């Protein structure tokens, strides 16, 4: 596994969304090339056999060998040692595994690692700039928007995207658009306050 620094990294949420549009187009092109490649007998990969893939996570490029069935979540946690992202249900129901792919929030447990080779993945470990926390992280601490912390990485990634999507016009809107992330400690009203507060700073 090598880890090379990616020279330019967009962290501004709105820029990330613009970028994701471009990346979406690139992904379509890539799918076409994959289809061609698998049709060519010179590069056969048996079903289930490990493949070498590349993942860009928090601005670093990683090469790893995984079976195609390995989820992005398990690739992050078990292969790359990025255990900040949590596994709550492994079925896309709780949101604890939420990460950003080109700025969009996705459940990494319902995503295969091989599917996201061209995306820039951001996990909770990739938000702070050294000692300086991301405004959403700061707001979560300031508003006590967590208790046990089990859902918190997912909540924070979801909140970053929620603000970026512009779904923070009112507390009601925040409640709706943050309802994909379960918090069993139910720190919800503090989460809403944190998202509203961070949104003021970011937008």
């Amino acid at each position, binding site marked *: 596994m090598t880890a090379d620094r990616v020279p330019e990294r967009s962290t501004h949420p709105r820029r990330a969304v613009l970028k994701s549009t471009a990346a979406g187009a690139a992904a379509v092109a890539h799918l076409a090339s994959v289809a061609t490649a698998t049709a060519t007998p010179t590069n056969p990969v048996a079903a289930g056999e490990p493949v070498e893939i590349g993942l860009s996570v928090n601005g670093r490029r990683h090469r790893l060998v995984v079976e195609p069935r390995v989820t992005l979540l398990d690739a992050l946690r078990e292969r790359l040692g990025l255990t900040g992202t949590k596994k709550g249900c492994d*079925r896309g129901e709780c949101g604890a595994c939420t990460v950003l792919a080109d700025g969009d929030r996705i459940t990494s447990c319902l995503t295969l690692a091989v599917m996201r080779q061209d995306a820039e993945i951001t996990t909770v470990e990739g938000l702070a700039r050294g000692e300086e926390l991301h405004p959403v992280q700061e707001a979560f601490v300031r508003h006590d928007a967590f208790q046990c912390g089990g859902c918190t990485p997912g909540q924070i990634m979801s909140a970053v995207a929620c603000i970026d999507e512009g779904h923070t016009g009112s507390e009601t809107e925040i409640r709706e658009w943050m309802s994909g992330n379960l918090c069993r400690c139910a720190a*919800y009203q503090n989460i809403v306050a944190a998202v509203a507060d961070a949104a003021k700073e970011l937008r």
Partner: protein
Amino acid sequence: MTGLVGRGVERVDGRAKVTGAARYAADNEVSGVLHGALVSSTVARGEITELDPSAALASPGVVAVYTHQNLPRLTVPPDFPYPKSFVPLQDARIHHNGQPVAYVVAETLEQAQEAATLVRVRYRAERPTAHLVDALDEAFLPDEFRGRPNEHVRGDAAATLDQAEVRIEREYTSPTQHHNPIEPHTTTAVWNGNSLVLHESAQGVVLARKIVADAFAAFDPRPDVRVVSRYLGGGFGAKGPTWPHTLLTAAVARQARRPVRLVLTRAQMFTMTGHRAEYRRSLRLGATRTGRLTAVVDTSTAQLSRTEHSIFNSSDSTLHLYACPNVHVRQLGVRLDLPTSSYMRSPETTAHFGLETAMDELSYEVGIDPVELRVRNLNPRLPYRGKHLLECYRLAGRAFGWARRDPRPGSMCEGEEHVGWGMATELHTYNANASTAELVVGMDGRATLRTASQDIGTGTYTVVTQVVADGLGLPLDHVTTLLGDTAFPAASISAGSSTIPSVIGPVSQAARGARDAVVAIAVADPRSPLHGVPAGDVVTEHGYLFARGDRDRRDTYRAVLSRHGRPVELTGSTRNTPGHTFGAVFVEVRVRRRLGSVRVSRVVAAYDPGRVLNHRTARGQVIGGVAWGIGFALMEHTVVDPNTARVVNPNLSTYLVPVCADVPPVEAIFVDRPDPSSNALDARGFGETPGTGVPAAIGNAIFHATGRRLRDVPFTQDRLL
């Protein structure tokens, strides 16, 4: 004393939790770790007749498959919190659906999960009984559990009831519910010779160590066990007991001679880690026309398993809350072919839901305001001080605007919505367990506190740090609190709201002792500016030691300790007593006229937890507990198929828990008066108090909104159409 205790300081573990740096049990890097996957039974009752692991063993990456045929015999740990009477994978008998029958270990998680599907198991199945209603005639009075009998008699309730001026006789039911912490149960077992380290998702590391040691009691030599749980991703009672998967992981890792990690699937958490039992409660209240209770007969019937008969949701409110000379409580059980039940956040809620709904029904029967009815019946011998519960009714009622309530059902409508206001008392019984805390003030003037209790999200790291910093007179960031490791002095499990009442006394004792020791060193040291000052005249603040009245004579912890040349170490171990914490909750609901959907739109609650040590973390328990009450009242419901005794909704898309949009803002009020009867700096146990009254308050508000009295939770939409 620097005034830190009581302040709502931010969580000291906040940064670790928002950056992903906090290492939960499954996050620890363990080199060479194998991944485990459990195969569980597909029948509820019967016997394994054939178990063929050959296809699994032939699957790539598989190291071993353990079953009752090849796993060494473990001892069934005799004491709670091992809640089961058997250990799986020890014989062919099946006691419930979803019981572990095989344990696969493989090099990768995916290999283990795939191989688990390849283990072939055949059963001789017997027909299970899964529903309480199908076996009510088999109800019996179980033996006492943890020293608490299941029958209580005061006066002559039956005779008094017959002659009562007013009688309320009702049945209330609540279904099976599951804790569903976000972090699944997980164990990583690492053997080194005869030493075992378990990275465990545990609410109580000390008891987990005992249970695991008990399981290996027949091994020679008996292993040394260390249990580590620095962060817990939610427990709510599910991780209080030590469940079989932990014992099995330890056994399997020993056999495989490699570290093994197991993370239960969400579905397995519905059969392997306890639940709140299904309940039926028959309540018969007798009262005078003026609303004074004369008799209460409270007969509950709980779902038990075939192999255990512990009742976890006791009728404390019926026994203690209201003054009533004639009370008969019976807690019956029915054995069913279901998994073992256990404690779940606020065990009193099932009983309390019935009582506080019945009190509302009585209030309408006698035409007395529900708050006034409760005040009239308040037990003057309540085991708590003063009239702070009255203060809770008053504070919360005023903030809510209760005085404006027109009691007639259906009296408030807004557009398409019926609006209703309801209230209930909240009550919780907390524990206090023996605990020791060890404090070291190092030569750098910084302090480290170690105790083998836990922070399960309730804020122990923060509150303990506050108490140490306050007791010593150090800045918060000069104090490090270390929890969740049996390498530290033994301390309380974090369950039953016991952490603060158990741990704060010892922590405070150690901090004050260490402060006095450092002051004594300073005043005896000719090199200190404080040399010769009477120890009683030294003030400690922000890392400094001052002479009272002459602040220019000062020293620092760092200088004193560094001249001293060795750390100062103190332990504390004062004992506290269990008790009760009370409060009052007022809710507003809105019921859509044509759809029957219920929304809780406003909640105000007031509590008397003694002295509030941190308003921020205490408030967290209120908003969380109220949400649990909303889940209990409106949605949580485990469905068991009657033919297979299998949970049919073992996931978070069909077992509904409150989401962000379900929970309104909650206003939390604290009486905040010291309770000198608690040696935890005058604080009582609190965490599980909020929520106990919420289901009844919601049901009472629905009655007020619609005139429909609901007695069976969850109050789903279909019941209001």
